[in-house]
């Protein structure tokens, strides 16, 4: 079978396992329900969303100023600040810091940015051991897979899958599925890596322009352990992670985990401002397409994203197609509006991987109009000639018909007549009619409403 080309084809592979699809859908719906309970218990939640949205809009409108303010404050704190225009430069900078430190062992805590930049393969290719220390990240790293979710990177895997992976890579007992024992095995394995690491790499949840500090949120404490032990800390951040003031942060810490997992706050919310004596703290600020997105008025707001994953948990498509069906670092609805900015042709099917139900927009803690942007990306893709030919020409034809009442009337009558007399096996042939793979077509009535209405008018009868 040839490689799947688009979201629909990749989804079909996921859907083959009906039971696993059900499990995946229910697992993520469970997370969505936890989010709902946390939201319902916070009466000011909608005000917080508005405030967060306003703060992010404001920050993006003056991003250059805040970036400079951040750099000045960070430098004054003894932090080394690096700027990377793209993924390649980011990877070069990080490798350079690692080499300068004379290091060959790195532990990394969770960072979608380094996934986006494909940092791990770059470091490995240059002889640096890099170990992901977040449990979910470590599981998929052992399996050589990409994360399928921004907060729950291994959510596509069951405990049986993890048991199999740990048996293969960590030498646990075959068939072990007890989560506590599996976690303990991971802890023991990772503890040795933490102790040996010379450099700790982390992501950044928020960067504060006023203080020059970066804030890292984790539930496992893995970032803190790694950073506390290693001599060198490299914090990698997308340039949109800024907040103007430290006091703005409270709005976001209240929203982030309530939206992500339904917790009131992450277990660890760590602020890194100055390196300890004898230690180094580096911050790498990455553009990698963000300036270009900032320059697209219809899509700028996508940069407000705080990577909570709520849009994935709520998306009825994501829950049934899995994160890998998006074939992009950030899956789900937010990934579908970020990815065309990076490579429009490659990701052309993603804005169509949605019913435009709008649930993503309603859960988004920073009020990104995700479903509106999905609709607008469709128009951009249409204008750029990136729609499948079948869609393009059928829509042109449909438009001609629908602008001409007589054609519409004749076409409708022909379709109804056709459906009544064409054999069911032909009208419902799955090869020609994707509707009919799982559904019956409507039973065609003899008369359209307009025919009925005309007949009523011709023979005035008592109404009703």
């Amino acid at each position: 079978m040839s490689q799947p080309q688009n979201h629909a084809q990749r989804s079909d592979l996921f859907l083959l396992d009906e039971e696993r699809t059900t499990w995946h859908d229910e697992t993520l719906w469970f997370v969505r329900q936890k989010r709902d309970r946390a939201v319902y218990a916070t009466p000011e939640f909608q005000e917080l969303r508005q405030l967060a949205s306003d703060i992010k809009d404001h920050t993006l409108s003056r991003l250059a100023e805040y970036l400079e303010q951040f750099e000045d404050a960070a430098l004054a704190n003894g932090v080394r600040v690096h700027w990377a225009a793209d993924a390649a430069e980011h990877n070069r900078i990080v490798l350079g810091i690692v080499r300068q430190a004379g290091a060959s062992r790195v532990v990394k805590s969770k960072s979608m940015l380094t996934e986006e930049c494909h940092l791990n393969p770059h470091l490995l290719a240059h002889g640096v051991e890099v170990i992901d220390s977040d449990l979910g990240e470590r599981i998929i790293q052992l399996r050589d897979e990409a994360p399928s979710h921004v907060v729950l990177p291994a959510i596509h895997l069951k405990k049986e899958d993890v048991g199999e992976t740990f048996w293969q890579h960590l030498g646990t007992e075959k068939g072990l599925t007890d989560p506590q024992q599996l976690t303990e095995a991971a802890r023991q394995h990772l503890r040795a890596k933490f102790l040996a690491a010379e450099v700790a790499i982390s992501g950044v949840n928020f960067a504060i322009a006023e203080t020059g500090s970066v804030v890292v949120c984790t539930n496992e404490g893995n970032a803190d352990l790694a950073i506390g032990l290693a001599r060198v800390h490299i914090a990698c951040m997308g340039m949109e992670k800024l907040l103007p003031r430290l006091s703005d942060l409270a709005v976001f810490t209240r929203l982030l985990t309530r939206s992500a997992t339904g917790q009131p706050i992450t277990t660890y919310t760590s602020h890194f401002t100055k390196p300890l004596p004898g230690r180094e703290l580096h911050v790498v600020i990455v553009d990698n397409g963000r300036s270009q997105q900032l320059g697209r008025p219809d899509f700028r707001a996508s940069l407000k994203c705080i990577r909570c994953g709520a849009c994935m948990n709520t998306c009825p498509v994501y829950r049934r197609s899995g994160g890998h069906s998006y074939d992009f670092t950030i899956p789900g609805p937010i990934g579908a509006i970020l990815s065309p900015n990076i490579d429009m042709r490659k990701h052309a099917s993603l804005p169509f991987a949605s019913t435009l139900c709008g649930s993503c927009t309603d859960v988004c803690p920073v009020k990104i109009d995700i479903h509106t942007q999905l609709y607008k990306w469709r128009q951009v893709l249409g204008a750029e000639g990136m729609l499948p030919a079948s869609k393009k020409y059928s829509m042109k034809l449909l438009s001609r018909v629908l602008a001409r009442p007589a054609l519409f009337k004749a076409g409708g009558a022909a379709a109804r007549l056709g459906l009544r007399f064409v054999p069911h096996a032909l009208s419902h042939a799955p090869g020609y009619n994707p509707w009919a793979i799982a559904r019956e077509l409507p039973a065609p009535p003899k008369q359209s409403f307009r025919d009925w209405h005309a007949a009523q008018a011709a023979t005035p009868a008592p109404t009703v």
Partner: protein
Amino acid sequence: MKVALFVPCYVDQFYPQVAIASLQLLAKLGVAAAFPKQQTCCGQPMANSGCEQDAKPVYHHFVDTFQDYDYVVGPAGSCVYHVRQHFDIIDQTPAVQHVRTATVELFDFITQVLGVTEIPGRYPHKVGLHLSCHGQRGLHQANESEMTPVRDGQLRRLLAGLDGLELTELDRNDECCGFGGTFCVSEAGISARMGQDRVADHLRHGTQVLTGGDMSCLMHLEGIVRRRQLPLRVLHAAEILNGALA
């Protein structure tokens, strides 16, 4: 008050009984709605497919057809939402602006314009209400589970007011059915799976009659019900309310 009935293209061709019920229901409530017969479609199928530019002649045709009416009433939240929300890409002449605000969903028209919040009648069945996303989240016709645990909405109240009618309480009150316009064929696998899950939620909780304000969602769900030969009737809410009202 000059009122036109806007009958979505697929309703005209495949579900004439829904348009007939809408017309009759309005008549019983004292509104004689006209049916301008040059009407075709709102243009949503093209626009949702990324061909908004191709839809422009259809938008103009819609405005030309309906500009002389005070209200344009359609039994389809999704089509109404499209006119109100997405006719922003053509010149905003007074006629366009008027048609965009005058186009109203049937149950919004009944409850908000006519001020009718209760329809006397009897319908002794267990009814499952399927909220259309464009009606609920687009036109704000019902509360959203993303915001509040309270399940409320105008159509829910109208139906609950009928004697003998019991509403089904679903596990997922406002999950999308997976129709999504051309999504239903371009992502046929996911679309079908979503619809199957939606129908299963109704069956699990005893729905006998599945209804809603948007025949497009219902066409998709009915297609699944009929393929699997499930014990469910699928009716537009206008059919239920018109049938119940003497």
